[in-house]
């Protein structure tokens, strides 16, 4: 090292003007779409981290399989008499539930990440404050994809068949991923506000249980007591489950897709700016 330190580290097109009256900018002129590029660069960082520690994907791979096994084989017989029939009813909804559970991890890992020195570095760089947050959300989309692929694979092996066509099924998957990405912003907000990762997880699941189980995921809405039916009707997760069912199994789509998209956009519009704001304030 001592032999090479004499080298001019500033060589190249951006060399500073020496002893000028103002400090010249070290970076080249800004290229367009900075936020998009920065976010994608940071998303790649998240992706590399996920791939380097594949055990981080255990929750998104084993959890949905476990839920299918529990619900279909434990309850399916009692609820619908036929296990394959119940699997068909349940699987699109389990898909929604599992990506929502998977989205908690983004807030959880962001909470630990933000405390590390590397986020200090990000904050000292001339990038938008939102870029590291968008990067984590986008980078974690891969978790949703893995979760859905595993679930569909397991479903196929146990007798689930798509009732419509691959294109509709793909649309269902994309809709579910988009909705989960919007929900992720709520957990990103928790991640930047809360002091401990454990608190993020605890609060997240407190929110998730009524949202995911307070739906027609396991049984049709009309079998529920009145007050619960009212909740299911306003619960956005129920809309997404209905939309996924209709797109994958067939049946009337109605306004469920539109509702799901509106909810997703609405959640992002509210929670993303809030998360960025709290992140900016955080020391």
């Amino acid at each position, binding site marked *: 090292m001592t032999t090479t330190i004499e080298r001019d*580290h500033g060589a190249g097109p951006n060399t500073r003007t020496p002893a000028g009256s103002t*400090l010249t900018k*070290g970076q080249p002129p800004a290229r367009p779409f900075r936020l998009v590029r920065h976010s994608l660069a940071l998303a790649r960082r998240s992706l590399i981290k996920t791939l380097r520690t594949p055990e981080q994907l255990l929750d998104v791979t084993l959890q949905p399989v476990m839920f299918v096994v529990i619900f279909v084989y434990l309850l399916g017989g009692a609820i619908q008499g036929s296990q394959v029939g119940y699997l068909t009813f349940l699987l699109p909804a389990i898909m929604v539930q599992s990506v929502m559970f998977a989205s908690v991890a983004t807030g959880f890992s962001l909470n630990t990440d933000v405390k590390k020195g590397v986020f200090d570095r990000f904050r000292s*760089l001339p990038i938008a404050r939102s870029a590291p947050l968008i990067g984590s959300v986008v980078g974690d989309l891969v978790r949703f994809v893995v979760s859905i692929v595993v679930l569909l694979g397991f479903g196929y092996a146990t007798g689930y068949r798509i009732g419509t066509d691959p294109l509709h099924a793909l649309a269902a998957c994309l809709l579910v991923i988009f909705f989960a990405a919007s929900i992720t912003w709520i957990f990103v907000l928790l991640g930047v506000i809360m002091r401990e990762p454990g608190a993020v997880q605890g609060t997240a699941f407190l929110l998730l249980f009524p949202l995911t189980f307070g739906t027609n995921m396991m049984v049709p809405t009309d079998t529920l007591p009145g007050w619960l039916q009212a909740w299911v009707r306003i619960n956005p997760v129920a809309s997404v489950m209905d939309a996924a069912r209709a797109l994958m199994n067939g049946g009337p789509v109605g306004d469920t897709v539109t509702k799901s998209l509106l909810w997703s956009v609405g959640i992002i519009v509210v929670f993303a700016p809030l998360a960025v704001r709290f992140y900016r304030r955080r020391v």
Partner: protein
Amino acid sequence: MSVAFQAEGLVKRFGKTTALAGIDLAAEQGTVLGVLGPNGAGKTTAVRILATLLRPDEGRATVGGFDVVKDAAAVRRLIGLTGQYASVDEDLTGTQNLTLIGELLDLRRRDARSRAAELLEWFDLTEAANRPAKTYSGGMRRRLDLAASLVGRPAVIYLDEPTTGLDPAKREDMWGVVRSLVNDGSTVLLTTQYLDEADALADDISVIDHGKVIAHGTPAQLKQIAGGQTILVRPIDPARLGEVATILAAISDRDPESPGRGVLTVPVDDDQAFATVVRRIDEAGIGVMELSLRLPSLDEVFFTLTGKKATADDDEKVEVAA
């Protein structure tokens, strides 16, 4: 010469703790400002304000003429930050870490890669380039961290205790890097607990304690504050120490001290004293192994200024990272 960065009357409180109680710091372009102080003195807080990571409660700071609060984005284009603890991503390789920073600084991917390769070579990390940073030794992480702060060729570089925990050889390497950065025209703010480090690298030193600047000057000026010079004599024959002591006592009018075996030191006020000591020892026919006149060390300066030792026993204690 123009001012690279300047902080005036910075105050920062964390709850009831006052981390900074109104400090002024400044450095001319192309110089090294050493900020010297014990753990908890407020060094890191001052750096974080100058690096736009914290807002001051009172006072203002500018970098290259830009206000760190109002023009934070412009300031961020000028600075490179190396934290007290290496802030690299452990799961990413050396190349991935540096390429990421390059891309965030708007380099094209190809340029970011070649800049990364250049820096890895400069910091002797080429062989480890494709290994995750978590497999690096402490010294390698520090180097990668410093490399990451240099990707954008910053005009002002903050080095927050860059050599804490490094072995002496690695410290020397780091010092070489700092010197070459300055030769290259960069301005460096270096915080340190090591007095010899500030002495070796800094053009100016601000000594801070309890969030205040308690002394500022060149290393030589600070040494003057501790007063006087010291003559040190080590005779070849230890049996003649007694004679040397008599000579020193007669000239300085003080009792000589013996800081080590076979060595005598005595403070003197008068520049002529050294010549007299040399002559008398020669006349007495005492052979000497070592005979020197030295300025007080910065340790002594710190002791004079604060009444306590700079290198406290609480080395294990970590400065509040906020």
